Every structure is written in structure tokens, then in C-alpha cells.
């Protein structure tokens, strides 16, 4: 598991890449990815292209990000979700809270 983050040139969008298993082990790293940055982005993208697995604590972490990004007004997009990840997000009906692509 490895988490990297990069800001768009104008600092408006932060993209967080999650590689491997996205579970409780990623807790601190994932938080650091959006809390320890200089810019204050308006939009967030969580890139799940290389995420192999996602458990309920990962769902909790996504909710924390959403909360950080403004709760109901947050703009958080979950990008490049593969079949398994999409399935887990669908069971939890997270499409009601996030843009899923």
C-alpha cells in the first residue's frame, strides 16, 4: 500500500492515489495526504486505479475526507474504480455521497 498526492498547477484540485490494499493500515497516510499540504484545494480526486481492495474502514476514511472537504458541499470524486471497488461502493450506496467514475 502506498499513498501519494499531487496538487494541480493552480492548487485547486488535489489528487490522492491509493495503491494496493486500501484498509485500516492506510489510515494515517491517507489523512496526511490531504491534511499536510500547503494549498487549500476546492476539489478532491481519489484515484483508485491501482487499488486492489477496499474495506469498510476505507469507506470510513473517504467519509473523513468528505467531511474535511466540506461535508455535504464537498467535491470529492472517486476516479478509476475497478469492478470490485465499484461493487463495494455500490453496496454502501456511496454514489449518493461521492462522484464515482
Amino acid at each position, binding site marked *: 500500500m502506498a499513498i501519494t498526492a499531487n496538487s494541480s498547477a493552480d492548487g485547486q484540485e488535489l489528487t490522492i492515489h491509493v495503491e494496493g490494499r486500501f484498509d485500516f493500515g492506510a489510515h494515517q497516510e491517507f489523512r496526511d495526504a490531504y491534511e499536510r499540504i500547503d494549498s487549500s484545494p476546492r476539489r478532491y480526486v481519489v484515484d483508485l486505479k491501482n487499488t486492489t481492495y477496499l474495506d469498510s*474502514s476505507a469507506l*470510513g*476514511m473517504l467519509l*473523513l475526507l468528505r467531511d474535511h472537504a466540506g461535508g455535504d458541499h464537498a467535491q470529492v470524486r472517486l476516479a478509476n474504480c475497478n469492478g470490485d471497488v465499484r461493487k463495494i461502493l455500490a*453496496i*454502501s450506496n456511496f454514489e449518493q*455521497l461521492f462522484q464515482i467514475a
Partner: protein
Amino acid sequence: MSEPLTILIAEDSPADRLLLSTILTREGYRVLTAANGQEAVMLFEQERPDLVLMDAMMPVMDGFEAARQIKQAAGQQLVPLIFLTSLTGSEELARCLEAGGDDFLAKPYNRLILQAKINAMARLRRLQATVLEQRDLIARHNEHLLNEQRVAKAVFDKVAHSGSLNAANVRYLQSPFALFNGDLLLAAFKPSGGMHVLLGDFTGHGLPAAIGAMPLAEVFYAMTAKGHSMAEILREMNAKLKRILPVGVFCCATMLNLSFQRRLVEVWNGGLPDGYLLRLDGELQSLPSRHLPLGILSANAFKDECEVFPLELGERIVLLSDGVLETGNQCDEMFGEQRFTEVLRSNRERGQLFEEIHQALTRFNGSVQDDVTLLEVSMVDGASLQRPLLDAERGGQRGPTDWRAQYEYRAQTLRHFNPLPQLMQMLMAVDGLRLKGGALYTVLAELYSNALEHGVMGLDSAMKQGASGFAQYYQERNRRLQELDEGFVCFSIDVSPTEQGGRLRLEVSDSGEGFKVGQPVQGSTGRNSLSGRGMALVRQLADHCAWSDDGKRVCVEFYWSCNA
């Protein structure tokens, strides 16, 4: 400066011993001396020095053996050991290291080198002591934490397994690890005799899960006992969890509302894997998650819509936690839905289902499964179930015996308020009615939904033909209820004493058009007609039942005798 280090010198040459001990004493150390290995080991055990300088070749017991014994006696504590030898061969070097030597000092002794080595070893010793201290601290913290988790588990265990899980129509399987993982099972009889059942799965485990489980269970049991509807209970559970749990902690759950009399089940699934309805003809109907888990949405965004299914005697519902589907094998595959439904389909004997699932998981994974929560609820004849007494039935003081009250609930109230708990609470204060609580609740509930759905909202029960019509009916019901802006349902309650005991007269009227009395509208009790059951029940349970000529008003009566 703290206490000086104590250094043990083991050296058989008296001149070297004298020289070394003089150097170290002058440097401020406390010095112990031994002339051979055996003396050194004895002195070590008595005095527990902090550091040892050991000659390799000594009579009686050589330095290598003495070093081994000292290291063993020191245990986890680091006692640095410096061999006093001018090493001439790699073989000897290997022996020193093997015996536990940490460093070497060659003859002739050089005071500066000696001091540097002792300082380095003292640092190493302090480092090791700190590590041990921290390790012990962590171990104590961990023990403390484990103990808290044990307590949490015990509490959670009680909370998660109370209620009516032992009812004859409920079967469940829960591994200890799944319990600890925050899976919980709740079941309770409703005052009307039906049942509420919930399978929940908290994010996180141990303490956080137990913390969420308690208010959840409390709301579930208290509101079910008071006669609240499933939607109300779900709303309250969601609101309570949202209020108390930190963001990111939530509860995936499926809740069932079983009505034995009407042979119906209502299903709400938020975030759990598909549940399954097992029809008598072998058909499998999935009960997918339609909602976000409990504890995420704010009260006004929460959705309590559920799906309603008719359920024949002997038909079953199976619910499961994600641990079942996520059971992995050596190839990193998950057990998954397909394998699970295959087991469901091939099940012949209902009592064997869990055993078959367990076997399939064990075959798949190659070892015993430990993250499994399964629940099976069957439709049975409600009368066959042993139901615990309602609180109100357990007796108490003499209640009011002669009174009258009228309640009119108007559109705005009807949209979001369930009047039944309020009415029940009042009626259960009457001594003679307590033992009739179940029947009374059912009658009240039937009359209320009849007045609301057919009277106020004008829904046609003919819509309910067949399973799809059924769902459509309830969708339409919810839609109309949301938009309701006029109409009322009125309850008149009259309790009066009689010669034998007492009588309740309950009149329900509504703003609807009514129906033509005399036409057998509610008469049909055919197997596939789901609509007539409600009114037939009322006739059966009440001591007397009559409709006004315009069909807008219904009056039921219950009688009781004093010594009942």
C-alpha cells in the same frame, strides 16, 4: 551524576588484575575482581555488575564458558562483556562472539581506549534499558487495552445477543471473531406479535464497535417494545449514531419487519451484502442494499423507504455479513456471491443450511472460518411462537377504569407521526387490557392503516394483487403520504366498568369517502389476496366489530372480567 557503574574484572594474572582495577577505580567505577571464570559467575550472580571485563584463558573455568553463563543469568538485561585478549586468530574471535562478547580489548592496556570502550558500552546498556522499559510500558498498555477489549466484548456480547434471537423461527451463526469485529444481531417481538430483526456490522472493531452497538440496541428494543414502526426505529437509530459516532464510523445494517398475521416482511438494507428471500419453490430473491449505512446521513437526508414482500409459511430470509463473502483462499480469491447463492440453491433441509455454508467456506479456504455472521428468519404461524410478556403485561398498579378520550390526527401530523405508541401507552395503563396487548395493538394498527390508506389517501387494495403489485402499492402509499395536505383520522376511546369487569369501545373514523357496507369488500381471505387479511384479523381479534352504514366509521369492543 547517578550511581557509578559496577564493573566486574575476571582475569587470572594478578598483575593485570591489579593494573586494570586500579585504572578503573581511579576513573570512579566500583570494581569487583575474580581470578577465574567460576568466581566471575558467582560474583556476577551476587552483585549484578553493569559491565564485565573478561580474560579468555583462565584456570578452573575459562572466559568463554563464564561469558555464556553470565549472559544467560543476565536474561533480557544487557550486560556488556568485553574480552581481554590480544586476538591472534579468527577462530578465537569467533569463539568470543559466540560466547556473547560485545567487544575486545588488547594488552597492553591503553587507558584512553579502555575508557572509550566502557563509555560506548554504557551507552549501549542505557539504550537497551530504555528499550526494555518502553517495551514493558507498551506491554502494560497493551494488557490494559486487551482487558478493556475483553470488557467491551462481554458488554457487546450481551447487547448483541439479547432480545428474542432464540425464537423458534430465528437461526443464527456468529463466530467469536465476527462478534469482535462489530457484527451484531438483534431480534424483538413487537407488541402486535410480529418481529423486528436486525443484522448490523460496525466499521472498526472492539471498543468502537461496542460503543455504537449499545445505543443502537437500546433504540431497537425500546422503540420496538413501545410499538414504533420500523421506519421510525431506523430514523432514530440513524440519528442517534450520527450524533454520537465520529465521522467515518458507521453501521451497515439490514432490518426486517415480520408480520406473522399478514404474512409480510418489510426489508431495509443499508450497506450490507444482498440478503436473500428463499421461496418455497426454490426461487431466490435478492434483497440488495438500497441505502447508505446507518450513522452517515443527517436526519433530514435519511431515507427509511423499505421494500415489502409477501412471505408464505415456511419461506425464509437469509442475511449475512461481508465477512462471509470476503472469506479468502490461497489464490487470493474471495468466496463471493456466486458461491454463496449456489449453496443457498442446493440447500434441501432447512436445518442444515448453516452447516452447509460453513462446510463450503471451510472447503474454499482450507481452514475454519472465523469472520462469519449469518441469520435466517422464517415465516411461521405467529401463534406457534413463545413470546415474552410485554412490559405492560407484567402487571402493576390499578389503572384508570372509567374514562373517555378523543384524538384527531390531521394531515400534517399523519405525514410523519405514528400515533400508535401514544395510544397504546394510554390503553396499557388499563389493568384489564394489559393481557390483551398483542391483540389490541394489532387491531389498532389495522384500523389505523385502513383509515389512513383506504380512507384518507384513497388507495385501492386491489392494487396489492401479486408481489409486484404489492411493491407498487407501498410505493404509491409512501408517495401519497408525503404529499398529504388534508384529511384526518380520529380515534374515540371509551373505557367503562361493567358488572363482570370492563369494556373498551374504540371508534375509528376518517375523512375518506367510506365504502358501501354490505358489499364484501374486506371479505376475501383467499390465499393470494393480501388485502382482506387485515380486516379479517380485526373481526377475529376483537370481541365485537361493526361498521357504520356509510363505511366511514368502525367500532370495535373488547371486554374483560375483573379476575382476568
